[in-house]
């Protein structure tokens, strides 16, 4: 499905990540109450100081902005069906993107999103794809075995980002003399095509702008270097000013057609799931068009060093298996040159094989498998996949939302009667239920926001569902998160500045020092003066906007109502009241680490 069709456009470059990381820690932020984990009698400035101290324990960016931008990113190639070409006029055009990086689950690493307004490939007046947002980018299939030689924070991991852009939302292709864009513009006119899907992989994340910090070959020296970098950042932060510390990743991506029935937020192609115990190899995706098999290995083959040399797995056979796991046909083989670093960077991890027509016919109804020549299975197809329509859901306490998952069989939506087991999962599976797909191949269930919390849900389709007792395994399971923002009882609070500051604004004043650059959240006069703008930026209808406030999407409904009552009231005098902040520490219970909590472990929780 999707971007694996031709024509498609390839791009490559880098992305900078600048999230505030303080809310990743249960000791400093309470995701249930959506507020800072306050310490008795401590002021917001004290919290800021504590966040800076925590840099030495992994809080690598307390002065961040959440902004994430592509840089040094260009169109790297096009494929109109004849393989990757680099002579098209579109090749070399810059790719511009700026989003806000936000986790639905603040403590974990499985639910990252990029809120943004537009993606622009190319420039105005030139060859260009101009793509106003339909919905946010979502991260899925995080692969913790990807860059083993880059061991710092989440430097080992890679992840797939995907969203789709509807033709009805202002999507524009300015083709000029680009045959690839002309082909894409023609293809998109097909009534079966809803728009374009953009999928990219980020990998080899570097912190403190120093790749050597991830080199664990000498652990003692690595620790010393990391400590020195943390100390240097602390020094800058304590010196005041605007001191973000963005991390950076490499990026490869592809732009292709978004057809009816295809998911927006993650690959809906045939899924070849990573094999437990296999050589580090992440889940791959596949599509067969006629006699062409296209594999997406964008998130699959690990690197063995910091020069990003791809692991040599030798010849990899693509095999069709019957339901007992026996070979039906070998569809083709990949040599190392098909998936090495040069090939990966040239084709964004996509590999195309020509199939024998007979083998293609067999493969249509068989499970695909990637297997090394020594017999080691790297990945095997799971024919049924249930993919949530909304991967990261936000609720207010008291709300009930209907969550829907679409079930696919080998990448195609199924019909009625397929059972889907839904497992609610925090650190481990706690609740399961089974639903049957409707005529559209969808199952739905209610998510009840009974209290402030973050929940994960795992979907296991099929009659013989085996519920993953360890909870979410992002390489294998499909899942969604639901964050319920609590009702903290603020509707009864008088709309005084003290209440607004202590119960609402102090959360971001303390945790987001960069806000000082735009608005002094501890200044009642300034907050009141910018009331109309604040109302616009916090309006739930603007939740998807790049500039929505708060960036981390954790303003509770009763907080908003209290703020608005204050903004609608008489203008206060200009008086800073930071010292009025008092509260009590919300203790975070200890967790026994589980497999599913690996994401939180990456954040130091």
């Amino acid at each position, binding site marked *: 499905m999707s971007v694996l069709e031709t024509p498609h456009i390839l791009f490559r470059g*880098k992305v*900078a990540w600048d999230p505030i990381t303080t809310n990743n820690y249960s000791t400093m932020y309470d995701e249930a109450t959506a507020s800072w984990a306050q310490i008795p009698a401590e002021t917001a400035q004290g919290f800021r100081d504590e966040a800076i101290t925590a840099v030495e324990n992994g809080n690598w960016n307390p002065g961040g902005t959440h902004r994430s*931008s592509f*840089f*040094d990113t*260009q169109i790297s190639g096009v494929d109109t069906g004849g393989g990757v070409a680099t002579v098209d*006029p579109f090749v*070399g*055009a*810059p790719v511009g993107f700026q989003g806000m990086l936000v986790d639905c689950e603040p403590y974990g690493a499985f639910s990252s999103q990029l809120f943004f307004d537009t993606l622009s490939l190319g*420039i*105005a*007046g*030139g*060859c260009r794809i101009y793509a106003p947002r339909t919905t946010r980018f979502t991260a899925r299939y995080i692969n913790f075995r990807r860059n083993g030689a880059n061991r710092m924070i989440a430097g080992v991991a890679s992840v797939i980002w995907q969203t789709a852009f509807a033709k009805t939302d202002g999507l524009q292709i300015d083709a*000029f*003399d680009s045959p690839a864009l002309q082909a894409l513009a023609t293809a998109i006119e097909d009534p079966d095509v809803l728009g374009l899907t953009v999928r990219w992989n980020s990998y080899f994340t570097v912190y*403190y*702008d120093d790749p050597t910090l991830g080199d664990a070959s000498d652990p003692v020296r690595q620790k010393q270097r990391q400590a020195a970098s943390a100390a240097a950042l602390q*020094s*800058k932060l304590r*010196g*005041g*000013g*605007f*001191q*973000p*510390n*963005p991390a*950076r990743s490499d990026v490869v991506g592809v732009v292709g057609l978004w057809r009816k029935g295809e998911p927006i937020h993650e690959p809906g192609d045939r899924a070849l799931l990573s094999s437990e115990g296999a050589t580090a190899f992440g889940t791959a995706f596949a599509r067969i068009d006629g006699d062409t098999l296209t594999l997406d290995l964008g998130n699959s083959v690990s690197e063995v060093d910091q020069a990003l040399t791809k692991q040599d797995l030798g010849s990899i056979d693509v095999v069709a298996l019957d339901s007992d796991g026996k070979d039906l046909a070998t569809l083709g083989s990949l040599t190392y040159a098909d998936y090495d670093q040069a090939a990966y960077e040239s084709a964004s991890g996509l590999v195309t094989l020509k199939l024998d027509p007979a083998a293609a016919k067999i493969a249509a109804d068989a499970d695909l498998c990637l297997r090394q020549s020594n017999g080691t299975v790297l990945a095997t197809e799971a024919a049924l996949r249930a993919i949530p329509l909304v991967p990261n859901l936000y609720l207010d306490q008291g709300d009930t939302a209907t969550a829907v998952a679409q079930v696919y069989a080998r990448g195609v939506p199924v019909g009625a009667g397929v059972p889907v087991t839904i497992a609610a999962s925090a650190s481990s599976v706690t609740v399961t239920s089974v639903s049957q797909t409707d005529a559209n191949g969808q199952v739905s269930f209610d998510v009840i926001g009974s209290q402030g919390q973050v929940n994960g849900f795992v979907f296991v389709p099929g009659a013989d569902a085996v519920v993953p007792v360890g909870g979410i395994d992002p390489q294998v399971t499909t899942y969604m998160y639901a964050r319920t923002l609590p009702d903290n009882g603020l509707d009864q609070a008088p709309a005084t500045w003290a209440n607004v500051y202590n119960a609402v604004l102090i959360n971001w004043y303390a945790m987001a020092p960069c806000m*000082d*650059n*735009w608005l002094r959240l501890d200044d009642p006069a300034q907050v009141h003066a910018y009331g109309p703008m604040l109302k616009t930026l916090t309006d739930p209808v603007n939740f998807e906007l790049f500039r929505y406030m708060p960036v981390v999407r954790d303003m509770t409904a009763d907080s908003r109502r209290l703020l608005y009552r204050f903004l609608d009231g008489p203008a206060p005098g200009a008086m800073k009241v930071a010292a009025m902040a008092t509260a009590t520490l919300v203790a975070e219970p200890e967790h026994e680490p589980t497999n599913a909590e690996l994401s939180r472990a990456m954040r130091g929780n």
Partner: protein
Amino acid sequence: MIRLQARPLETLQDAYDLLQTAIGVEFGTLPPYLYALFSIPPGKNPAAGARIRSVMLQEMVHMCLACNILNALGGAPKLTPPTYPGPLPGDIGPHGTPLDIHLLPLSRDAMQQAMKIEEPEKVPDFPVLKASLAAGPQAMTIGQFYTMLDAYLATLPPAAWHVDRNQITDSQFFAGQIFAVNSYADANLAITQIISEGEGAPDNPLDFQNDIAHFYRFGEVFYDRVLTKAPGTETGYTWGPEPLGVDWDAVYPAISDPGEHDFSNDPPEAQAAQAACDAAYAEMVDELQRAISGEPGRMGNAAQAMFDLRMAMLVAFRSPLADPTKVSGPTFLYKPTTEGAVL
């Protein structure tokens, strides 16, 4: 068109002088661009604002790169804020006459001035543009100036380059754009970036990353037309037909060259706004000077002052003067006010 007087480069001191002039020019272009940018009310003229903002950010990068080159050669860059109206640092100007730079709210005059600053040696013969601009190089464009500098730097031995001396990098801001200069190769890369982002390539308007160069960015606003590919034509580009959507009336009624305005009879709010602008500007200059003098962490403090300046400018452009049909704008007059002042 700004043209820098040619001067033979024979010694390292000559290179220092030339680089110091370059730093002054890069820094000196910021206030007029900022003035035009912030004269646009929020939500108005988004396309024009985006273009001016993108140029302004790149000018900041260029200034840092020029400082990096000078520091790498063992020099000591100085920020010397010009006064407006007035000439930019260095003996520069079109046709042998120093060019006076004015602070102007967004207008065709402001954009024409910006185009003169950024004009390449040879302006491609695009339709529309042909009839409106006449060129006659007598001295040097900024691009030629940097090219001459590059030719001299290429002759220096490796030992002339001081590794990691007072360098500003992109670790905090401008990912992928600011980098340390430790060798001629780095300096050459920096100069290539500066020239191409300002002027584009000799025969087309794109910079080294295939984005639109400054001269043409301003041209789009000036002509109110998107610079558009025209495959198969002799020039390859046309101005339009797509309009950029500039609304010349959607601009604060700001006075030009506020540095020449006497604010003593204006409302206290306008005077307070001026004072806030002056304080933030002075803070920014002082912190920048520290940053390029071996305290890179101070760049964050300079950025903080830039945010303060932005807020102050927003207030100034909303503050009526004694003539209620006019508002004030920042003077960009440097007045050392802090203990940290180093100029």
